């Protein structure tokens, strides 16, 4: 650059010397000094221009031309505001939707976990392939063994989630409690906002109960009291000393939207006693690999560990494998297919938008043929013209991108209210630098895609013709016409793919929501009631509480039909228990049979309208002192007692200390979908709440009262019994059912929306092609009409042209959609990916929309006045 400057500075001197020498030469030839100088200047030419041209040699011509092109493009776009608005809007829609979806995909799937060196973090879990158990937790005994024996891990920690009741601060409230081993904080390299994290001593049994609060809880419940650390709070009626506050961004489990407090496992009323159990799989274990240790090495160590554990305690550990997997994959793995499908779908929307804009640009390019031909004639190179047109589409792309980003901000906001609550890491979704970069890159890629075709044709040699053509009918080459038809066909095919996806998901969602859950959710309200376990510590207390509660609820007007259940189907997950059929030969080891377990009060089946098929339901006589009884579901009876009379048979199952108690089957009830609506009902077994009580459960009430007034009554009755009892998650059962299908609803809604956009864009595309074709053929139509063509035959002509496009589009789209629908199969419920009804429906819909889209141009064609049309030329 320095050289450039020096050269330019010296140029003046050089030029002056040149003219001086020439002047002197001229004087020597006999001119007067004035003449000589004038002649020298004449011969030299325009000094200013020479200076400019020389400067150009040194300047970055490319950049200057680019700036020129950008300004020219801006001028051209301003000149046709209608076109610009349509193109920018279409593009903004495409880029905005893509950016919004990408922000979700990025936050959930791609963004590294918010911990130091997230790549070293793994999850350690157990699996038992023989029994199709792919993933479950590890008990504390085995965890402690792994932690002390392993060399591959820098640290290992375990956690579990639970709920404790905070009292003494305003209304009693239920806190999401993370029950952890002390090392989890150092493992995640998390620093407290105030105070300290846990020390190894805090994790020992018999230590002083300590608790760490989340910043959110500290601010909302304790008014950000800086002196809270060191003081005590009451959790489930026991005092815990606050030792630290964790900053708001910290999560130890990442699955839940929020975590309120952390306590050591030993201090938890439920899980504390489990620490010495040799069986069970209840802890979620994470580890940090030592630097340089690979996943395979860690896995090899854990394989050896599994073998050693199985040898030590075959009864509990035989057949169980300890596995290691990257933590991030484990957290987001399940949401990946649905999110990728969403991303692909929204990508298709953008592609359709691009095709649409390409089509618009193409028709504009042909009306601009004269301008371009003129510029070529004036000496512009082909490359220069292509560059100029590409710059124009890049400017368009950038405008669309900016508008798209604005839309994406709004879209992300709208999305967050739609997002299913169980989507992991959803709380981190936002438009950040990565997302903006994506949007920007996308707008350039998009502008290249839609700018390519018109530029290609602009550089076509036939443009010379452009000058000769009359202004009214600018020339469009056959290639260009074919390209426009091709683009319209592509649009229809792409729209077909999206609409098929939308159709399949909608069909699947309809199937899912119309499936019979096995109970009648209408007019049922449920409420979670949880008893503080330090205060209510014995099964007798739990049972007594439930009896009192139901008695008082029954006495309330309008709440007569009520019952307790733990757990409620489709609500907080299922409890799966192994069982034994009394009298059957003992099963070979490692082949346990299991069924889902629910403990219910006698009225449960009546309230939920679950039918009794054989035998009897529970009644008041099934008390703790009476013989133990059980009910089984139809599937249970069919699977384990085929062609037998089940009544009177006995099953052994239950929670300790009742694990080995034989219970007589007194009846068979209808099947219930308890895990999810999409899963076929499995075997279920019920026991009377009185014979298997829990520390709370779900109250279900069938009532004609509004859910709000039912909620008020439930709260009042509960607080009359114990003012410190929290009543949470009051909702109607239809709401609970609704929440259970939040993920499928989310994707169905979005893909449906994308399908709609695709349909609209395709309609616009067809409209554009047909109306352009009609205006081009006005002359021809005029002749036809003059020769006696009826309006109907003109209509047929135009409809035929449109139908050809649609049929071609369908011919391409159907096989492509068939091929791609396979990828949806994991998201479909009782709908085949090649569902003929969906394909047929979509084809009909597209055809209908295409015909409607060409209605306006067709009408114009029918009204062509031959006199006007012929004079046109």
């Amino acid at each position: 650059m320095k050289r450039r400057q020096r050269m330019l500075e010296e140029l003046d001197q050089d030029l002056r010397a040149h003219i001086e020498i020439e002047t002197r030469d001229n004087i020597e030839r006999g001119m007067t000094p004035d003449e000589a100088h004038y002649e020298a200047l004449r011969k030299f030419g325009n000094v200013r221009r020479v200076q400019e041209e020389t400067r150009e040699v040194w300047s970055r011509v490319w950049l200057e031309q680019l700036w020129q092109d950008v300004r020219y493009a801006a001028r051209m776009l301003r000149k046709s505001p209608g076109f610009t608005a349509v193109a920018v809007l279409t593009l903004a829609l495409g880029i905005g939707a893509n950016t919004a979806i990408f922000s979700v995909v990025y936050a959930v799937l791609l963004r590294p976990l918010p911990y130091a060196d997230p790549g070293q973090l793994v999850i350690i879990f157990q699996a038992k392939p023989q029994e199709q158990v792919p993933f479950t937790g590890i008990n504390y005994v085995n965890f402690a063994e792994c932690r002390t024996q392993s060399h591959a891990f820098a640290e290992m920690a375990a956690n579990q989630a639970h709920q404790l009741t905070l009292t003494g601060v305003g209304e009693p409230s239920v806190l999401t409690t993370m029950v952890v081993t002390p090392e989890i904080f150092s493992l995640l390299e998390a620093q407290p906002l105030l105070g300290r994290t846990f020390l190894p001593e805090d994790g020992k049994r018999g230590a002083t109960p300590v608790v760490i609060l989340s910043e959110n809880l500290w601010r909302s419940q304790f008014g950000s009291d800086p002196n809270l650390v060191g003081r005590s709070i009451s959790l489930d009626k026991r005092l815990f000393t606050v030792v630290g506050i964790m900053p708001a961004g910290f999560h130890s489990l990442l699955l839940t939207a929020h975590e309120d407090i952390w306590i050591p496992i030993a201090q938890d009323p439920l899980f504390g006693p489990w620490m010495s159990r040799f069986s069970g799989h209840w802890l979620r274990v994470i580890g940090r690999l030592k630097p340089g240790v690979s996943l395979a090495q860690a896995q090899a160590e854990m394989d050896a560990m599994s073998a050693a554990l199985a040898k030590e305690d075959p009864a509990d550990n035989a057949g169980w494998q300890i596995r290691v997997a990257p933590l991030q994959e484990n957290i987001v793995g399940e949401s990946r297919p649905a999110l990728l499908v969403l991303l692909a779908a929204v990508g298709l929307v953008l592609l359709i938008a691009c095709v649409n804009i390409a089509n618009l640009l193409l028709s504009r390019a042909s009306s601009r043929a004269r301008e371009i031909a003129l510029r070529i004639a004036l000496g512009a190179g082909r490359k220069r013209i292509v560059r100029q047109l590409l710059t124009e589409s890049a400017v368009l792309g950038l405008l669309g991108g900016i508008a798209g980003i604005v839309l994406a901000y709004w879209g992300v906001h709208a999305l967050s209210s739609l997002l299913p609550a169980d989507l992991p890491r959803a709380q981190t979704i936002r438009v950040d630098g990565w997302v903006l970069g994506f949007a920007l890159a996308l707008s350039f890629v998009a502008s290249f895609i839609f700018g390519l075709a018109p530029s290609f044709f602009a550089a076509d040699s036939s443009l010379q013709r452009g000058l000769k053509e009359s202004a009214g009918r600018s020339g469009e080459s056959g290639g260009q016409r074919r390209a426009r038809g091709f683009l319209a066909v592509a649009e229809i095919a792409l729209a077909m793919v999206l609409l098929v996806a939308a159709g399949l998901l909608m069909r699947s969602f309809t199937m899912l929501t119309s499936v019979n859950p096995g109970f009648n959710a209408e007019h049922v309200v449920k409420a979670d009631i949880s008893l503080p376990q330090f205060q209510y510590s014995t099964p007798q207390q739990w049972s007594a509480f439930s009896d009192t509660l139901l008695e008082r609820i029954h006495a309330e007007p309008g709440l007569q039909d009520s019952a307790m259940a733990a757990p409620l189907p489709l609500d907080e997950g299922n409890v799966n228990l192994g069982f034994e059929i009394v009298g059957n030969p003992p099963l070979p080891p490692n082949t346990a049979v299991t069924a889902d377990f629910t403990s219910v009060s006698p009225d449960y089946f009546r309230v939920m309208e679950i039918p009794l098929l054989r035998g009897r339901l529970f009644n008041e006589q099934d008390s703790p002192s009476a013989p133990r009884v059980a009910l089984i579901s139809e599937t249970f009876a069919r699977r384990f007692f085929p062609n037998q009379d089940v009544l009177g048979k006995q099953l052994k199952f239950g929670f300790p200390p009742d694990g080995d108690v034989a219970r007589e089957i007194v009846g068979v009830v209808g099947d219930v979908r308890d895990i999810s609506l999409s899963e076929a009902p499995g075997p279920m077994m019920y026991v009377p709440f009185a014979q298997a009580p829990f520390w709370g459960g779900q109250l279900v009430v069938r009532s004609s009262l509004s859910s709000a007034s039912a909620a008020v009554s439930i709260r009042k009755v509960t607080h009359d019994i114990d003012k410190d009892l929290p009543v949470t998650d009051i909702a109607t059962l239809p709401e609970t059912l609704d929440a259970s299908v939040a993920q499928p609803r989310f994707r169905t809604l979005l893909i449906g929306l994308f399908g709609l956009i695709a349909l609209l864009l395709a309609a616009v595309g067809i409209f554009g092609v047909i109306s352009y074709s009609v205006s081009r053929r006005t002359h021809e139509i005029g002749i036809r009409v003059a020769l006696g063509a009826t309006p109907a035959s003109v209509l047929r002509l135009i409809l035929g042209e449109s139908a050809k496009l649609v049929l071609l589009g369908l011919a391409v789209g159907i096989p492509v959609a068939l091929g791609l629908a396979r990828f949806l199969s994991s998201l479909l419920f009782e709908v085949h990916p090649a569902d003929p009804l969906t394909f047929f429906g979509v084809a009909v819909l597209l055809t209908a929309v295409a015909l409607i889209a060409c209605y306006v141009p067709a009408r114009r064609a029918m009204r062509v006045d031959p006199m006007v049309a012929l004079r046109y030329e």
Partner: protein
Amino acid sequence: MSTKEQERRIELLQGTLDLLILRTLLLGPAHGHAIAKAIEFRSDDVLQVEQGSLYPALHRLIKRGWISSEEGTSENNRRAKFYRLTAKGRKQLALETSKWDKLAGAIAQILRPSEQEGKP
């Protein structure tokens, strides 16, 4: 159409001017005016170079590294810039010259038969 041909001719001339400058400098370093004079003189005044157009061409050649410039004193004792052919420029000249010969030969071959065909 005619404007377009004109454009081509200018382009052709530009490349040719570069070639002529390089050829002139083969005889030794020279300042701008001397180069212009030499081109006029050696082509028997057929090629009338607008003298000013020499300078953008000279700078283009400097930028490409085919010639270099140095301070010197002209005949009338004025400081002026002297341009000198570089080794790279020498190679380029050889290349361009052979290209030019080929082009001229090819054009001559095309033109001659076309003249004959043109006769009815």
